[in-house]
């Protein structure tokens, strides 16, 4: 389908982008892999697309005990970058390698996906389990939010109207950690019917986040049961199935993370 008429601006600086986003119904365009389909289906009708692809926001570097990932880093880069190759951080590359297909992975970005906040977003579970924070920038300045405070509900985030994600910062887990991402996918969309990201630390403690089953991805209380987690059903995957599969993917993610923890020395 053909999107409704929209203007297009390619920003050449962060300030220019933030300024352009001040127009009512302006929308930032990163890789377009989430935005363009909803544009074509006319589900969203922005007034102007502010293309932030030229702002140099892509890249991965380890700074001290953190890995800083630029918001416009693509899935393909995430799946293959050496900085993420440790078993402790494997969940991120594992998740990225499974997103969409080759074309989507070459264009889609981490920041774009997080800002879109699809309830079945795989990577949100991963950034939650890894305890990442998001660095945001607006005309008022910079601020930092824990991933768990960033996504508020389906397609709803704490991003202000003139605010962009600039980086996702992942604390480097201690040696002897392992992480994994396991999901059961919807056969058409590839989105998670239930997806679990797990980080296991050397003492045995773990962080687990679940996605695809409710309004947004969320951390599962350690050692807690999933009985208290709100789980939706739909025509394809009824609630009973999702609940059952959620338990399975959590277990499998933890198993795989533990196996990786043993390799991470």
């Amino acid at each position, binding site marked *: *389908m*053909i999107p*409704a*008429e929209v203007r297009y601006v390619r920003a050449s600086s962060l300030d220019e982008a933030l300024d352009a986003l001040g127009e009512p119904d302006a929308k930032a365009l990163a890789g377009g892999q989430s935005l363009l*389909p909803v544009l074509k*289906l*006319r589900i969203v009708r922005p007034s102007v697309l502010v293309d932030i692809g030229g702002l140099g926001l892509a890249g991965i570097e380890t700074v001290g005990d953190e890995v800083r990932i630029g918001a416009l880093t693509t899935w393909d880069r995430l799946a293959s970058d050496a900085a993420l190759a440790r078993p402790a951080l494997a969940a991120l590359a594992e998740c990225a390698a499974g997103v969409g*297909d080759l074309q989507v992975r070459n264009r889609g970005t981490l920041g774009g996906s997080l800002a879109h906040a699809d309830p079945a977003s795989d990577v949100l579970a991963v950034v939650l389990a890894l305890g990442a924070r998001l660095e945001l920038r607006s005309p008022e300045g910079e601020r930092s939010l824990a991933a768990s405070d960033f996504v508020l509900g389906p397609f709803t985030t704490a991003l202000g109207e003139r605010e962009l994600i600039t980086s996702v910062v992942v604390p480097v887990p201690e040696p002897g950690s392992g992480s994994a991402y396991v999901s*059961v996918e*919807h*056969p*058409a*969309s590839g989105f998670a*019917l239930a997806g679990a990201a797990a980080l296991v630390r050397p003492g045995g403690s773990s962080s687990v986040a679940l996605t695809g089953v409710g309004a947004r991805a969320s951390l599962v209380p350690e050692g807690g049961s999933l009985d208290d987690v709100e789980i939706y059903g739909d*025509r*394809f*995957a*009824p609630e009973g*199935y999702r609940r*059952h*599969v959620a338990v*399975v993917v959590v277990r499998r993610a933890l198993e795989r993370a533990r196996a990786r923890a043993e390799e991470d020395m």
Partner: protein
Amino acid sequence: MSAIGVARPRLDAPDKVTGATRFAADGHVHGLLHARLVLATEAHALVTGIDGKEALALPGVVAVLAAADLPLETSGNDRTAEPLARDEVVFAGQPVAMVVAQSAAAAEDAVELVSVSYEPLAAVVDVEEAMAPGAALARTVEDEESGGDLESIHAGVDKGSEDEEEPLSGNVLDTITRKEGDAAAALESSDAVAEGTFRTPWVYQAYIEPQVATAWLEPAGTLVVSTATQGSFVTRNELARAYGLPLERIRVVAEPLGGAFGGKFALMEPLVAGAALALRRPVRLALTRAEDFQATNPASAQVTHLRVGALEDGTLTGIEARMIVDRGSNAGWGVEGITSALVVGPYRWQARDIRGYGVQTNRFTFGAYRAPGAPTAAFALESLLDELAQKLDLDPFELRLKNAVVQGDIGISGNPFPTIGAVEVLERLREHPLWGMRDSLPDDEAVGMACGYWPGGNEPAAAVCRVDPDGTLTVVTSAVDMSGVSTGFAAIAAEAFGLSADNVRVVSADTATGPYSGASGGSKVTYTVGKAVLRAAEAARRKLLAAASEELEISPDDLEVVDGEVRAVGAPDRSITVEEIARRTLRFGGRHEPIEGHGGSAQTVGAPSVAAHLSHVRVDRETGEVELLRHVIAQDVGRALNPALVEGQMRGGATQGIGWALYEELAHDEDGRLVTGSFLDYAIPVAEKVPEIDTLIVEVPAPDGPYGAKGIGEAPVVAAPAAIANAVAAAAGVRLYELPMTPPRVWAALRSSAGESA
């Protein structure tokens, strides 16, 4: 060197791969207007008003057309006679109005502004409830029966007998009865009986090119329609019927096709032709994928109640079937005839009692999809045959072989089977190492098998072969190249004439210029048009030899054609090239008739093709996910004119069978609205999901086909879903009776079977 049996790329492959092909939406037409459809949002309603005022006010919008604006000259409720809903909408997604504008974007903006008012009526969405006397009718405003000749394209099966005893509602448009002997008694005295109710959903053909057609009036009055269609002559007939035009005033040009699988017959053309006639401007309608999902003609959902029996030695005894076909809103025809004929499979039975019902509901107009009615029938039959085999402790192949038909066995329509390779295919498949491995696999893996066939079709056809001054041969037919048939024609003509296939070109003509060809569908083009091409090439060859005979002063009986040269048999230095003869002929003062031949064919017996499958699966019992590890297909193809193309058809059919088995379902909500309207919701088997598919070509020559070849496009899909279902049943330990076998369904079946045995 023979041109037959050589694997070579399709003639159109380079153009298609490099993007040079001009498809139906690509052609440049001066002054072209663009149409977009307003689709019904109600599954069943009376249309009380269509208001296009706001839409017309948008810049670039030329017209908002409703049914009354199209100069239709026929009545009837099929999509040719009623391309836009008249008074009553019968499915959500039905075209109700058409906006025509100077750009597609303007048309799309305008569609949102057309306001249609409806008086909702009860939506009939359950096909079995719809049959009961007193059920609400899916269509309340009827026009006299009129269906065109679209049904006959798809298969050569008869309609069975009439039997009026059963009380049914007016939603049941057709009842087929096929009775022979006393099936109930036969089942009673069987040593094993298996039964079940099998459900299959609406399935989308998912061709890669959404539907498109362009129409315009030539200054002298001819209506020209350039379209992505499977049949130009059939389309011309439909347009003549719709608009009351004489045939010579309509010219249908079939453009290169981006896939069709049965779905591209006369849906777009009545719309654009009507708009072009009404507006006297060229109009193109190119559906978006979203519109194609909603408004075209996918394959029918079906419910099959089946019961089969066998004796201890595996002899099949009786078969009882009630097959309910959800025609949706298709008033013209349904697959109840075909599916009720094919549910007996390629097997002998002692007695049968089969009923097929074509039931209308408030869903899509059903359409044909590769072997229409066959995969659904085979899913039911082959699942139960596996159960019989288990009960009788017989090998599944043994059971099929024991009953497989051979030439001369009487088929369900009372006619003897022609040459048919069921036994050969089964024996060949059984030898594949995968079958031998089935008992040594891990617990969660299994191999399943199934066998099916497609009767093929026949329709008279004609072709022309013409030699050009460069000594090359041009083959002219009106056949639409949907599956690579043109490449087959080149091989046939090359072989029959005596040239290398590299020197043969194949062109598709249109209804104004071409020799007759029926639609591409029904698995008959290679068989029928190919035969015409063979005869045309032979006729051209006779002209060639006559001319060469004069030039060389040698009798034609002593001449042969080898590698583009006519030579004396036994004295090859006395020769003349084809090119030289053509050069001397095709000029002012030339001495010979042009080297051209016309050929025709009219086979009266179809050429059925049997295909059997092995499927190796792994079932994840915790998630219900089915992983396909390997697939094998063996098919009787008559003669593989081009093994590469034949294997492509086999793999393509098997892959679409994978789609039926595990992925594809067009789902509606309780109000009859489509909820799986895009590829984000409707899963198809993409490359990543398809395993290695081994292809075993079996050749049992068709006596009446060109070099023994026959149509093979549909047979490969028929038993693929059943083979996968049988594999899943073996791997999971529980059988599923509904397709697609999605992870939630597999899991639910495992759970309820565990519950039962707990």
